[in-house]
């Protein structure tokens, strides 16, 4: 990695900081008080260091390659059968020959990547015909789908080929078996929808004639109803694999099969000719090229309370301005802070906004070098607000938001999202490149510059192309007829038409009495073709009437560009959250206290707990890990033996009590557990812990533990840690660490005055010079952010300080070491190291806190964000998807590319190029217990590939190539642990799919390979975040808020053995720590961040023509073009400055307002004000997509509702006859209540009355209202209206 000496110094600082923390952590861990005696987060070494090759070929492969030289692949697949018949590869039995031959040729036909050859064929067996001869049965399983129709069909042919060679007779079906096939395939079609359902005649022909018996493993839940319990058909359950091979294989691909039959001169397949002629293909419907039409996709699924700011491409919406500020790019877009205030404070710094284009969503950040909103005040005055303070003070007087201002989007975003450039609004940086000299002082100067041949300066260009030529004529007439120039201002009567036109043009004016007063009128008059005497010039006589801008240019003689540019729609997305992570209920300590702690799991309650009334309190029975001291052999549950020795977990068979090191008991096969039931005097333990810490009992008012331990080893966390956390108001996460979640925003530069850190402090951290090379002396100088430095929110800083204090106390009082952090106030925090972690991933990234942001967000370098996530698949990885009608197996590359919704792509904070799939797809997914479920694919994504990928090979011959930090699933006793790919080793057992069942497979090969493509691909799967890739269950890409933890907290307190065995327990663990970010190895989406200080004129001109951003690649300075040089990481610039990255609202109104009613009220009030928003339509959309769905769904759920026991939480599908819980006699209560059904009823009614809602929607509300009333009865007289809730 190339870097400058200055950066070398930086890296050394990080390294030494890490080393000193590691030293402390090692010292602390060596006391033996924790489950392990070493810090458990390994420091990741460079991937390239570990490149090794290990892949051999079997004899079959060599022979296949030989055959492929001579003939087509299909022929070779058949021909290889001869070798098997000759037993070249050591097969012994007939079944084995058949089995191996079929699998080998399947592998060849499917290019060895899909699961079909291994998993698609369950087994091969011989059956008995009624005449006593034998016939071949192939048992197809579900994954045969992955082979595709042709390979499926040919596998039958292969079977037949080998069968003939071995002299086995053909299959002679019995009549009832034929009928069974017909019934079953039709039933399968009802369940899963086949691509092609052959007619009854076709099916009959296939089954009676096919010389091989196509059998299958049961794959579905349903059973056939008619032809059950047949002698030669082993199951009554529907066999999906069989149905696929018959329908989508033999029937659909008959011509292909026939071709091979002819080539190989095989007999007994003549019936295929008769069959051919039924298959049809469907046409695809794609509409391309409409990139500049308004797109309202972002408005679908509108949620109540999240306002719409601008309708698609509507006048008054966000005007596109190209550029990047130091806090935008990388899926963040800039708005003027005044805009944020005027838009009701709904958009706080970092709030996500769903946008019309180029991507789907953008984090919103304040940029004050662009224009703010233009509003009409209640007084009638129209003005633009370019100042946040002014926006706040005027907010209450705003009557109408005529224009919501500019939005700053960088070129890189368009490139990332593959969206054509759009004409931007005319702006000064563009003007300056085509004749502009300097910012004009006043109107006169602007006119002078224009007369000199330059375009008219954007500040004096009104939005002429928003109005019609007729409007222009009207306005000119009004001014000419009744306007006067008085006191240096143009005054004209306040007529509605003139005022409306002026407002649309964004001509600033105020109202005096009944007259409109326009201060700056010279340009306006000129453009209207009026003289200073307010007479129409002669140019009016031959004025063009078709084009407004053309008309104005003709009238004025100036050259003009459009100030309107392209409008971009937007609505509020998900509000971000920034807070310490808490489990529910949040514990202070991972110490189990069972039910004795009450619902709060409190120690205080457990201490007074008496299981019998006449016993001492505090004696509780808990299930803990079974550990043994390495020094004296004592059996205990604590990490440290009383003799001072460290203890290790002991596994026993729960049945025969035998101690074992295996996962399963060697004697009886039961899963070994590390578990013992002990009676603990928690009162004494607690008192002893307090005594060791030198604390009084009164120091801790409430200490919360956990109910039970759910990890494999069940180690117990020392109570002392919990006590110290409780006194520092910290909660523990399931892995023993404390974390803080926050939204990540990109930042490349910062100013000392906005990060709340002194210049001296920054200098001591290495920030000695600003971007222009000047020494740092002023708090307003702009500094370039080091790529592993971050800014944390002030709340996070306070939290980090508490953690630091906790760690110091822990070191001092518990481990007997020197305190490490010694932080007394906030200024001590900068310079300390933290660990950044993206959710659902297992690799932390080392980072240094250098300052604070007032907004509740974390600012970090794009590389830092990008480093945290790039877990994906190589493009040829096969995945199985179900589109609601049929399953398909496709390479992930093809799936992602085909289903990437080009019209609406997005770029997220981590720099991933993603979109919703074009249609709804499902895939198989696995939960941590190993249950396979169908889950929806919620998005598809494309990532730039790192230089190296890891390829795994399994015992069952499956291959999977993933990025090194891809989340893999590994069996751990009886649940699936999520670990990163670089941690997966040979011998690890991973889940693979067999039929529809997950089974265990073993990693036999692990190879680091160069990435052949420059992209890797991934899907997002709902809920479980797992999917089947090449037949192997793995994790997938995830994206959400990131979190930080203090470095020493992770190093000392994190233990893998705390990680729960239960569902989702293993996600989000810092299993590895990346210490040094190499831009070449982070997610390469960050390489599209543009880092120049301007865009050239050619760029703007090209944008006017909707040029594709790829064609302008050379014009813009981007990270990608700097890779491999020291400049890849330093010397970045930006096009638009901003004075404060935390300007504008810091908390979204959405978060502040409590109830949905308040939010909705605020949303609709805002909608009425914004010109670019149709309030009635917003109201109707909210009704349709949120409220009515909720009402109907809940009402429906009410009449089908499940019940639950209040005591033991058992779930009931219906009320038990006993009327109470049949297990514990507890109370059984409803899960859906009247209140939750009616939640949105009053407000829906109110909306229907207040807004222009379509009759259809109104009636739907009315119908639901009546249904609710008839379900629950007429409510008591008093009907609360919307107003009653305000």
């Amino acid at each position, binding site marked *: 990695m190339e870097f400058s000496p200055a950066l070398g110094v930086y890296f050394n600082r990080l390294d030494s900081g890490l080393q000193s923390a590691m030293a402390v952590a090692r010292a602390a861990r060596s006391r033996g008080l924790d489950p392990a005696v070493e810090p458990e987060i390994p420091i990741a070494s460079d991937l390239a260091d570990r490149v090794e090759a290990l892949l051999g070929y079997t004899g079959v492969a060599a022979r296949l390659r030989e055959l492929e030289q001579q003939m087509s692949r299909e022929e070779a697949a058949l021909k290889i059968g001869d070798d098997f018949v000759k037993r070249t590869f050591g097969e012994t039995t007939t079944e084995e020959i058949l089995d191996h031959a079929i699998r080998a040729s399947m592998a060849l036909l499917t290019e060895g990547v899909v699961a079909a050859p291994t998993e698609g064929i369950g087994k091969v067996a011989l059956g008995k015909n009624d005449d006593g001869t034998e016939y071949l049965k192939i048992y197809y399983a579900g994954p045969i789908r992955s082979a595709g129709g042709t390979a499926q069909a040919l596998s039958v042919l292969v079977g037949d080929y080998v069968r003939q060679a071995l002299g086995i007779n053909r299959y002679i079906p019995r009549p009832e078996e034929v009928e069974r096939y017909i019934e079953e395939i039709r039933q399968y079609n*009802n369940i899963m929808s086949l691509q092609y359902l052959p007619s009854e005649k076709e099916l009959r022909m296939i089954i009676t004639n096919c010389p091989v018996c196509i059998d299958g493993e049961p794959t579905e839940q349903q*059973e056939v*109803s*008619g032809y059950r319990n047949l002698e030669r058909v082993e199951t009554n359950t529907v066999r999906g694999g069989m149905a696929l091979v018959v329908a989508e294989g033999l029937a659909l691909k008959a011509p292909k099969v026939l071709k091979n039959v002819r080539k190989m001169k095989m007999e007994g397949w003549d019936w295929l000719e008769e069959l051919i002629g039924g298959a049809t293909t469907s046409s695809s419907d794609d509409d391309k090229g409409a990139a500049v039409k308004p797109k309202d996709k972002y408005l679908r699924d509108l949620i109540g309370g999240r306002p719409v700011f601008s309708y698609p491409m509507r006048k008054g919406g966000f005007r596109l301005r190209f550029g990047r500020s130091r806090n935008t790019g990388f899926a963040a877009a800039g708005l003027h802070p005044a805009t944020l205030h005027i838009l009701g404070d709904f958009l706080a710094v970092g709030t996500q906004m769903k946008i019309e284009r180029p991507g789907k969503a953008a984090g919103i950040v304040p940029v004050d070098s662009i224009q703010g909103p233009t509003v009409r005040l209640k007084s009638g005055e129209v003005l633009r607000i370019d100042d946040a303070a002014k926006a706040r003070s005027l907010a209450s007087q705003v009557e109408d938001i005529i224009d919501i201002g500019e939005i700053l989007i960088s070129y890189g975003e368009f490139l990332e999202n593959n969206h054509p450039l759009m004409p931007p609004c005319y702006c000064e940086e563009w003007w300056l490149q085509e004749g502009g000299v300097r910012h004009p002082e006043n109107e006169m100067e602007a006119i002078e510059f224009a007369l000199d041949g330059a375009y008219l300066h954007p500040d004096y260009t009104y939005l002429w192309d928003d109005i019609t030529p007729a409007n222009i004529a009207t306005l000119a007439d009004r001014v000419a007829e009744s306007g006067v120039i008085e006191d240096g201002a143009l005054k004209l009567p306040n007529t509605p038409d003139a005022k409306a036109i002026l407002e649309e043009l964004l001509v600033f004016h105020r109202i005096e009495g009944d007259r409109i007063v326009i201060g700056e009128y010279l340009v306006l008059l000129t453009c209207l073709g009026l003289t200073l005497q307010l007479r129409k010039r002669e140019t009016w006589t031959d004025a063009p009437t078709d084009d407004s801008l053309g008309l104005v240019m003709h009238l004025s003689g100036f050259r003009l560009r459009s100030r309107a540019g392209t409008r971009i729609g937007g609505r509020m997305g998900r509000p971000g959250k920034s807070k310490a992570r808490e489990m529910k209920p949040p514990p202070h300590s991972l110490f189990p206290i069972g039910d004795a702690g009450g619902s709060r799991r409190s120690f205080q309650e457990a201490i007074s707990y008496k299981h019998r009334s006449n016993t001492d309190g505090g004696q509780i029975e808990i299930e803990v890990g079974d550990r043994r001291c390495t020094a004296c052999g004592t059996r205990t549950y604590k990490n440290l033996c009383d003799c001072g020795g460290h203890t290790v977990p002991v596994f026993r068979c729960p049945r025969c009590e035998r101690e074992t090191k295996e996962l399963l008991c060697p004697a009886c096969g039961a899963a070994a557990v590390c578990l013992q039931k002990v009676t603990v005097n928690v009162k004494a333990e607690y008192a002893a812990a307090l005594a060791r810490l030198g604390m009084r009992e009164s120091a801790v008012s409430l200490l919360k533990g956990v109910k039970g331990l759910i990890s494999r080893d069940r180690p117990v966390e020392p109570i002392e840690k919990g006590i110290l956390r409780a006194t520092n108001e910290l909660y523990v996460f399931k892995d023993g660490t404390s974390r803080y979640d926050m939204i990540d925003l990109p930042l490349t530069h910062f100013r000392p005055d906005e990060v709340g850190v002194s210049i001296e402090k920054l200098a001591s951290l290495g920030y000695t010079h600003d971007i222009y090379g000047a020494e740092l002396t002023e708090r307003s100088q702009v500094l370039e952010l080091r790529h592993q430095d971050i800014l944390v929110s002030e709340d996070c800083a306070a939290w980090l300080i508490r953690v630091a204090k906790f760690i110091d106390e822990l070191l001092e009082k518990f481990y007997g070491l020197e305190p490490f952090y010694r932080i007394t106030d906030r200024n001590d925090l900068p310079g300390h190291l933290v660990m950044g972690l993206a959710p659902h991933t297992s690799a932390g990234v080392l980072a240094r806190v250098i300052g604070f942001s007032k907004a509740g967000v974390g600012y970090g370098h794009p590389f830092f964000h990008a480093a945290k996530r790039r877990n994906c698949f190589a493009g040829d990885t096969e995945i199985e998807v179900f589109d609601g009608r049929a399953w398909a197996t496709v390479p992930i590359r093809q799936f992602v590319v085909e289903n990437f919704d080009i019209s609406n792509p997005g770029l997220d904070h981590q720099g991933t190029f993603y979109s919703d799939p074009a249609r709804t797809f499902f895939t198989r997914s696995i939960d941590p217990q190993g249950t396979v479920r169908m889950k929806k694919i919620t998005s598809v994504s494309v990532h730039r590939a790192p230089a190296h990928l890891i390829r795994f090979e399994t015992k069952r011959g499956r291959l999977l190539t993933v990025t090194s930090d891809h989340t893999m699933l590994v069996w751990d006793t009886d649940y699936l642990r999520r670990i990163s790919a670089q941690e997966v080793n040979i011998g690890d057992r991973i889940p693979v799919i067999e039929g529809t069942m997950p089974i265990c497979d073993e990693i036999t090969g692990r190879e680091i390979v160069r990435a052949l493509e420059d992209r890797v691909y991934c899907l997002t799967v709902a809920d479980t975040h797992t999917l089947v890739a090449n037949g192997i269950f793995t994790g997938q890409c995830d994206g959400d808020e990131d979190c930080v933890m203090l470095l020493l907290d992770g190093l000392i307190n994190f233990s893998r053995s705390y990680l729960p065995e239960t569902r989702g327990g293993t996600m989000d663990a810092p299993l590895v720590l990346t210490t040094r970010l190499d831009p070449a190895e982070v997610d390469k989406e960050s390489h599209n961040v543009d880092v120049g200080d301007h865009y050239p004129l050619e760029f703007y001109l090209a944008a006017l023509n909707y040029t594709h951003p790829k064609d302008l690649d050379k014009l813009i300075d981007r990270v990608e073009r700097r890779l491999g040089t020291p400049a890849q990481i330093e010397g970045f610039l930006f096009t638009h400055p901003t004075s404060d990255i935390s300007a504008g609202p810091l908390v979204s109104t959405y978060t502040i307002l409590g109830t949905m009613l308040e939010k909705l009220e605020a949303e609709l009030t805002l909608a009425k004000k914004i010109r670019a928003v149709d309030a009635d339509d917003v109201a109707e959309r909210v009704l349709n997509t949120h409220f*009515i769905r909720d009402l*109907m769904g809940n*009402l*429906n759920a*009410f*009449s*089908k*509702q*499940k*019940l639950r026991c209040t005591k033991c939480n058992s779930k009931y*599908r*219906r*009320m*038990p*006859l*006993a*009327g109470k819980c*049949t297990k514990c006699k507890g109370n059984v*209560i*409803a899960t859906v209540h*009247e209140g939750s059904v009616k939640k949105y009823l009053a407000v829906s009614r109110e909306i229907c009355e207040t807004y222009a809602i379509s*009759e*259809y929607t109104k*009636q*739907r509300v*009315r*119908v*639901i209202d*009546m*249904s*609710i009333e*008839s*379900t*629950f*009865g007429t409510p008591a007289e008093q009907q609360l209206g919307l107003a009653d809730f305000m």
Partner: protein
Amino acid sequence: MLAPREIVQRFLDTKLQVHPDVVSYIREQDDPALIDRILESVPGDALVVSVNHIPGLKKERDGTRFFADPELEIIVGSPGTAGSVAGYEDAIHYFRDRYNKLSAMIRSRTTSMPIEALTTSPHRYRDQECTVIGMAVEVRTTAKGHRLVEIEDPTGTILVLFNKSRDDTFADAERILPDEVLGVKGKLSSDGGLFFAEQLFRPDIPIKHAPYTSDRPGKAVLISDVHVGSDTFLEAAWNRFADWLQDTDASYLLVAGDLVDGIGIYPGQEHELTIKNIYEQYDAFAGMLRDLPSRLKIVLAPGNHDVVRMAEPQPALPPEFTGNFPANCQMVENPCVVSLQGVRVMMYHGRSIDDMIGLIPGASYERPGEIMEEMLKRRLLASTYGMRTPIAAAKMDRLVIDPLPEILHTGHVHICGITKYRGVLGVNTGTWQAQTAFQKQMNINPTPARAVVIDLQTLQPEVLDFS
């Protein structure tokens, strides 16, 4: 206990066929001597032994009717009786009511004991044949293919195993639906944890049931699923039907739900409606009704497309929508029982058929008659709670088929089907809507534009096709 095969064989030995009802009756009585008694009483010319030949068992005509009874009377389900759900506590009463009504029907044929008695003292009842009556909680198939059913009564729950090798009861066991009430005769396992079933009882229609028939002439026309407002409503066929009604001697028209297509029933419905206004849909229907002869007495029940709540029992259509309906219309709830000249018709729209088709092996939309038989055997219109059929669990279970009607009239699936089970006539009427896009996708082929005419004196149905 006697196996069905043995019983049949005993009769075959004497060259007689035997009706399945007789076999099940003998099994229920568990009295081998009964066969001899029956054989004695069978007349020499009979080929098939029917229920009538069982000595001491006479078909009993159901119920007493009074001449003062009005021609058309709503026995159960007049408007306003469906009521609302006061709270989830009602669900206790709801399922208890179901259990009480249905278990009483079984209890009359066998002696049973509370489940609690079995589970608390298993040793006492080991190896002893006993009967329990319970409501099915959960049904599943074991790894070995046996059927495991958890049943409960107000005292406790127990797991019942139906062995797959007992083909006599296993076929019935495969059709056990959650929340139906069953009687099970069998033996407790040695550890008391499992009950091995030998015989299964359902509430069923009494074997001696004989339907009441009207003593004066009268005809009723049964239809359902008109779907006015849908773009697939078959107006021409309806007009042919209306014309035919002008000249017919039928005096009653019963419509079992889905009078109009409704609004907001499924996503995107607005694109498949010709009348998008729910009031106008009912007005259009009212217009159609006004064109029918006024002497006709019309009974209108709601369905899942109608404007009332989905949860069953569904209330009658509110006056807000029926203002323009002619005076000869009578709104009823869903389900309801109406008496036509003393002949009772139970009308039920049939939402539960969707659930039952999914749960009963071999059931199909094409044969709705079979589903109606299953309803009658269970004496339940909708067995399973919590699936597609929303149920408003009030204090009483209106979905229990009690009293027993002469005719069960359903709709919903758009496919015509007629069945007769132990004297009760089951009619699933078709629809007046052509195949919808959804049905096409689901490969459901409706039988539109059919009306079923029933002679109330003979209970003979006749299907008229107006398509």
